[in-house]
């Protein structure tokens, strides 16, 4: 199904994917009493940031993610993916890593877990990174 006026949008799959992400976060919240913040879990797995999350939990979560994505890839018989250039991805990775630690979270920790908790820090962080992302894409569009 497509959205009138937005032929490239996938609203039903988006909503279904979002519900799965919400269930994933709810499993950790109600089961383990923790926020799912992927940047924090990655940092923990590589001992970059201090956290009391057990090391096996961090690695099991990180191993599960590509398995889940691969399962959808296999069920759907492929997934579209259009990546930026390698130098662009390196610059982006550095900014995302630095910014996530400096701002105490990323799209999952602030965007999903914090906003749904109505945390003012997360709402401010999410509004800020969306605005910065919009500005970046707009500038890229002008110079490209």
């Amino acid at each position: 199904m497509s959205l009138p006026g937005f032929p490239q949008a996938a609203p039903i799959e988006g909503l279904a994917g979002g519900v799965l992400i919400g269930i994933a976060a709810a499993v950790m919240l109600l089961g383990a009493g923790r926020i799912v913040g992927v940047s924090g879990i990655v940092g923990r797995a590589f001992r970059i940031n201090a956290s009391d999350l057990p090391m096996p939990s961090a690695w099991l979560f990180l191993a599960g993610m590509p398995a889940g994505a691969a399962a959808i890839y296999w069920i759907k018989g492929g997934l579209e993916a259009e990546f930026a250039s390698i130098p662009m991805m390196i610059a982006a990775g550095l900014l995302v890593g630095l910014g996530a630690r400096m701002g105490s979270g990323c799209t999952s920790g602030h965007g999903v877990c914090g906003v749904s908790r109505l945390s003012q820090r997360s709402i401010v962080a999410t509004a800020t990174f969306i605005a910065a992302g919009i500005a970046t894409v707009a500038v890229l569009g002008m110079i490209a």
Partner: protein
Amino acid sequence: MIARQVLPAVSGVLFGAGLALGGMTNPARIRGFLDVFGQWDPTLAFVMGGALAVMAIAWRFVPRMASPLFETKFSLPDRTDLTPQLVGGAALFGTGWGLAGLCPGPGVAIFIIAPVEALVFTASLLAGMALHRAIARTRTEEPVHARQ
């Protein structure tokens, strides 16, 4: 307790599946969402909406629970202060997010379906995190020097 290992694995699988199903493993979709002045792709808003709806319900159970189901206590962030680091960090994060259309979740989730891109992005991500740790260390050392 087996649940301690099963929970994060199950959560990771569901999280990765959700990202892939919602199209979030495709950087073009992320950039399309941020391209509000061009050909806007609202799919990410539906992903966010679905995730927020489920989590808004989940949060309502937390105050009624003495402890999580498989742990002895909740370990939740409790900061409420708005700081320049929060806003500045989020601004840097958003800039990188817009440049490549990737954030940490999708960067990890694509490790099987696009291993080269996953490796390049997550290695850079770790370098950025290590850079922050190095900066934070020198900044916390400054007051110590000043007192000497």
